[in-house]
Structure formats: structure tokens, C-alpha cells
């Protein structure tokens, strides 16, 4: 512990500080999703989170001279900040959640816990993530260690988000933010991953989004609502 204390008195460079701030911004966006009551706001927040990750990728590309990352940043921005939100919004409009029948409203389903309680639980979970990463002592070659802790925290908080939410679209967005956390981790520890593999992951994410959309439509068609509170018939 004294080792850590000595390290904190010395400030990190301004650049790594900036990178850390962007990473923390991603985590704050994740927490922000607890608060968003409207589905379209959640989609927007997800787009903002994806943009932050692309920005971080550009920072890493510029400082560590990995030109592949420019392409990756552009692709992931195009896919996750533009295409996926468009797909989701079109889905919501198609079911009438946006600008349509007021019966199927844009409001996200009720939570299992209240927002403040959920945030407190998520803080505890994120703290667990921070402690685990610190205990493992993994050092990243391209970004300060804080970024790794933050990315693991994003993943864990995304799990809490998926558990606490009780409607299909919020759960799907929770899953997408989980994937964001994983790609942030990839940026921190696996920045040199060949571009072709990263593109395979991105393409796969798109396929997953399409399938999620189809299943949301199926669910909505049967239940005439987005709520999962009644999905309790299969038990035992």
C-alpha cells in the first residue's frame, strides 16, 4: 500500500491524465444510464459512450504510433455511434415507441431497485472491480493503469444495469454497453490486436444487434409491451 501512496504523490503526465479522464467519462456514462428514463436518451448516451471510446482510440493511436488504431477508431465510431443508434431508433419507431402510439411509450420500464439504490450497488460492484485489477497488478503498455480498472468497472456496472432493468430495450442497451467496456479493455491491454480481428468483433456486434432487434420485435409482438416483468412462466 505504501508503494501506491508514493506513486500517487507524483502526478501522471498531462496526456495520461487526459486519457484517464476520457476513460472515467466512459464509466460516468455507464452510471448515467441508470438515471435515463427515456429509451431514446439511453440510446443517445450509448452513442456518447462509444464516441468517447473512439476518441480514446485516437489518443492511443497518436501517442503510441499505431496507425491501425485510426482505422479502428473510425470504424467503431461509424458502427457504434452512428449505425447502431440508428438501427435502435428505427426499431423503436417501428414498434411505435417513439412518436407513435402513446400506449407503447418511450419510457423505460421500472427498475428492480430505485435509481439511488442501484447506483450505490453499482458503486460497490465497481469498487470490487477496481480492487481486483489492482490486486492482479496488470500493467498496460499503452495507457495508464487507471484505464484498465475503469474498463473492468464498466463491464461490472453493465451487468448490474442488465440485472436491474426490467424492459427489453434497456437490457439490450445494457448488453451493448458491456461490449463497449470489453472494447475499452481491448484498447488498454490489447491495442496491437490485428485489425482484421477487431473488424471481425465489430461485425459480430452488428449481427448481434440485428438479432436483438428481431427478438425485441418478437417480444413486443407477443407481449405488447417492452416489460420483462411478466417473463416468469418458465420456472424450475
Amino acid at each position: 500500500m505504501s508503494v501506491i501512496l508514493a506513486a500517487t504523490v507524483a502526478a501522471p503526465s498531462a496526456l495520461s491524465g487526459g486519457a484517464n479522464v476520457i476513460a472515467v467519462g466512459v464509466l460516468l456514462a455507464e452510471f448515467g444510464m441508470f438515471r435515463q428514463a427515456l429509451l431514446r436518451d439511453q440510446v443517445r448516451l450509448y452513442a456518447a459512450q462509444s464516441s468517447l471510446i473512439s476518441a480514446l482510440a485516437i489518443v492511443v493511436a497518436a501517442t503510441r504510433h499505431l496507425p491501425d488504431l485510426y482505422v479502428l477508431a473510425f470504424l467503431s465510431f461509424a458502427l457504434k455511434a452512428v449505425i447502431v443508434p440508428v438501427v435502435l431508433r428505427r426499431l423503436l419507431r417501428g414498434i411505435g415507441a417513439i412518436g407513435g402510439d402513446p400506449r407503447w411509450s418511450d419510457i423505460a420500464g421500472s427498475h428492480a431497485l430505485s435509481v439511488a439504490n442501484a447506483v450505490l450497488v453499482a458503486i460497490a460492484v465497481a469498487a470490487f472491480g477496481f480492487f481486483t485489477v489492482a490486486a492482479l497488478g496488470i500493467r498496460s503498455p499503452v495507457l495508464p493503469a487507471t484505464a484498465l480498472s475503469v474498463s473492468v468497472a464498466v463491464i461490472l456496472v453493465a451487468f448490474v444495469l442488465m440485472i436491474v432493468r426490467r424492459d427489453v430495450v434497456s437490457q439490450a442497451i445494457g448488453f451493448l454497453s458491456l461490449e463497449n467496456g470489453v472494447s475499452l479493455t481491448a484498447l488498454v491491454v490489447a491495442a496491437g490486436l490485428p485489425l482484421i480481428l477487431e473488424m471481425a468483433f465489430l461485425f459480430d456486434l452488428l449481427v448481434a444487434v440485428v438479432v436483438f432487434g428481431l427478438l425485441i420485435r418478437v417480444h413486443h409482438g407477443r407481449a405488447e409491451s417492452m416489460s420483462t416483468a411478466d417473463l416468469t412462466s418458465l420456472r424450475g
Partner: protein
Amino acid sequence: MHAVMILILALPLATAVICLRAPLAAARTLTALTGVASFGLVLALVPTTAHGDIAYLRLLRVDAVSAVFLLATGFLYGAIAVYSIGYLSGGHGGGAPTRYSRRFWVGLNLFAWAMLVAPMMSNLALLWVAVEITTVVSALLVAIEDSDGAAEAAWKYVLLASAGLGLALLATIFAYYAGTHVLGQSYDLGFTQLLAVAGRLPHAVVELAFVLAVLGYGTKMGLVPVHTWLPDAHSEAPTPVSALLSGSLLAISFYAILRYYQVAAAALGSTFPRNVLLAFGIASLLLAALYLFGQRDIKRLLAYSSVEHMGILAIGVSFGAPAALAGVFLHVLAHAAAKGSAFMGAGVLVRKLGTKRIASIRGGLDLLPWSGPLFLAAIFALGAMPPFGLFRSEFEIVAGGLRSGRYAAAAFLIIAVTVAFFGLAASASRMLMLPSPSAAQTVPVPEPESEPVPVAAGAAPPERNAPPAPAAAGPTAERVVRVVRGEPSAWMVAPVAAGMLALLLLGLHPPADLTDLFTRAVALLNPGAR
């Protein structure tokens, strides 16, 4: 051999594309042919892989371990493709049978294709992509039935499985990171590459990657406590899809875990990975064995049996002795055959009696001259009765366990398997051996329309496919129906018979090529084993 590999990759995909447009009769035949042909092609790979690895194009790689899982998938693909011909003639899809059938055929081929691709991938990242594709395709297949239960099961499945695969992706990334210490910043996650330098990988990272991989891929494999989607998805999917899910998809996820186990064992020594797998295996086996009692739905019963067998697989790997590992590989094959046969037989029962509820299925042996006994045999096989293959494999696993000194775990395995057998056999014997409904007895059938169902005999079954929709149809109507002895379809009998024959073969006298394959696979998994 390269041509064989390319054919295995290309054929199911081509069939899937063709089925998008072709007339349904052609789609049926083509799928069945492709299924059987794929099995043949995989069989052709066995002799070569029993003595060496085949690599091609930097992307594809088949070694003995992959060949075992390819065999499992190939066999089931062929069997299910034939079975589905009879299954779909039973009239599914409610108001749009053509659309249902088309989606079914396309989905089936795509699903089988994805499951054949996964063991052939040479690096961990592409392996993950392949498993993810199997998830999305199978989720769509689970949702294909037009019922509330199917929609619910599909949503739970896709959410949980995708979240688990998110963890598996994290594991892949950490594995990559472990490799960067030795292989440099940028390398493709080639499996052989990683294995070659395994001794120099940092321990903490590899431990983390392995645990995450077991958790992530274990979600898809059905390890407790992340198995909760499994009973729902397997019971609500159409029967052929359930058979593929239980027999092949769980095995493919196990394959992914095995690859991580290989790297972890080489990097960390075998104690840590084996303990992790033992913990999960015991939890799965225990929970499944207990849950098998008191099941009310026949397919849910079989789903929990799958969880049980996956637990046995995990425990088998954790034993580590060569005998146990050989047993594990045999178990993969035998379980595929047995579970496939059981699901197929269950499908016939459901079709004949019009309900999935165990309490309502009676007199299977009387009504179904072929499927009845075959289903009974499949249940016995699942309970590890000799002379079927599963007995041999579990025997080898226990022998390996005793040899490596894990007496308590081996004893637990035997007890749990016995308990599970009781659970399975209790329900199965009730379904098969209690007297069949006679003329005076009523069979509760939810009645969608008021038009009477024609009583028919022989191979042309009445339309008995009534999806549970009690709320819409009003109170469950009971009608006096004569259920007549006879098989619904010959297409649904032959594959089950083939499965049981395969089990007999595996149990009594596994072919020499197969044993060579197992030996090599064990050697790959356990270099320098004791």
C-alpha cells in the same frame, strides 16, 4: 484433406443459401443430403487427424481434439436433418407453415455450419466469433415457434448467452495480453503459437483469462450457476433444434473451454485449472441431479440431463489422468448420440400424444412400436447403463479419477449419476410403461378450433400439434380421442435407431481409428501426463 475441410465449410453454407429460395421439397432433400455428406466428410478426416494435425490457410486447423467435436456435430447434423423431414410434416408454424419451414431449413443449415466452423478455427479470436454466430442463429431458431414460452425463452437465452460471451471475449483479450509479453505487441492469437510459448506467460493474467473463459463459455456450456437459460431454451425450441443445442452446441462451448484449459495447463501447471473445472463440474452435476426429480416437462427433463452430463465432462477433465481424458472424449461423442436420440424420441412422443407434460404422456411403449423402446433405450443410455457408450465413458472417467487420487470426487460422481438416473428413469418409465389411454379414457388436449380432429391410424398422423395457448383457447377441453398404435413417421424413427446403434458401437467396440483419435487427443491435452 484440405479439400475435405473446405467442403465441410462450404457445403452447409451453400445449402443454407439455396434453401432461402428453393421449393420446400428440394430444401428438405438437400438438407438431409448435406447433413449425411458432412458426417461422411468428417469421418474422412478422422484417420488423418489421429496421427497429425492439419493446418490450412493460417485460418483453419484441425487436430485430434477438434476432430472429436466435429464428429459429434456431424453425426447430429445428419441425424437431425433426416429427422426434420418427418418433424415438419407434422404441421408446424400455425398460420404460416411455409414460412416456418423455410426459416427452419435455413436456420438449421446455418446453425450446423457455425458449429462445424468453430472447431476448425485456428485462433482464439475467430473461435469466439464462431461461437457468437452459433448463439445468434440458435436464438432465432428458439424463437421460431409462435408461442409466449418460446419468445420468453429466446430472449433469456440471447441475453444471458451474449453476456456470457462478452466475458469470454474479455478472456480472449486477456489471453492476447498474456501473449504480448512474449510474442510482441501485434500477433494473431494463433493457438499453436500461444501454446508454444505458454511456459513464459505471466501467471496472474493467464489465471484471470482462464477463469473468465470458464465463466463465459461455461454460460453457453451450461455450467452451474450460469446455466439458467438452458432449461428454458431447450424446452421451448423445436425438437430438432433442441437436440442440436443439447448434443452439439454445449459440446462446442466445451471445446472452447478445452482450448483455454490447454493453454492454462501449459502455463500454470495443471492444479489450478483442474480445481476450477472440478468446482464447476461438481456444482453442475449436483444441481442437475437434484432438479431431475419433479420435472413436469419432458424436454426440460432432458435439458437438465444435459447439464448433468456437462458437469461430468468438467469433472472428467479435472481428473487429468489419460484414462479420464479418453473417457471425456468418448463421452462427448456418446452424449451427442444419446441426447440426440432421446430428444428425437421425445419429439415423437410429444407428437403422438400432443403434449409436452410428463403427467399427460402415457403408454409410450404400447403406442409406438419402434420409438417407444428406442426412447427407453436412450434414457437408459443417458443413465449410463451398459452396454451403451456412456457407460464405457463414465467408467473410464471414474477409473481415471481413482488413478489420479481424487477418490472423493469419483465417489461423488458415481452417487450423483445414480441419483440422476433415478430421476430420469422415474419420469421416463411413467411415460412409457403406464397403460396407454384406451377408448374410454380422455386425453386433455387444448382445443384451438371446435372442428373434430380426425382419428387416423398408421403413418399419417392427425394434426396433434397444439402449442400451449390456454388463455386464448379458454379452459382446457378434454376430448375423447382414440390414440392408435403406430409411428407418426418413418423419417423420425430411422435417425433414432442410428443413434442407438452408434451408442452400441461406441460401448461395445469402438473402432480402432476412433481409439487412435482419442489417444492422440489425450496426448495433445496432456503432454507429459502421468
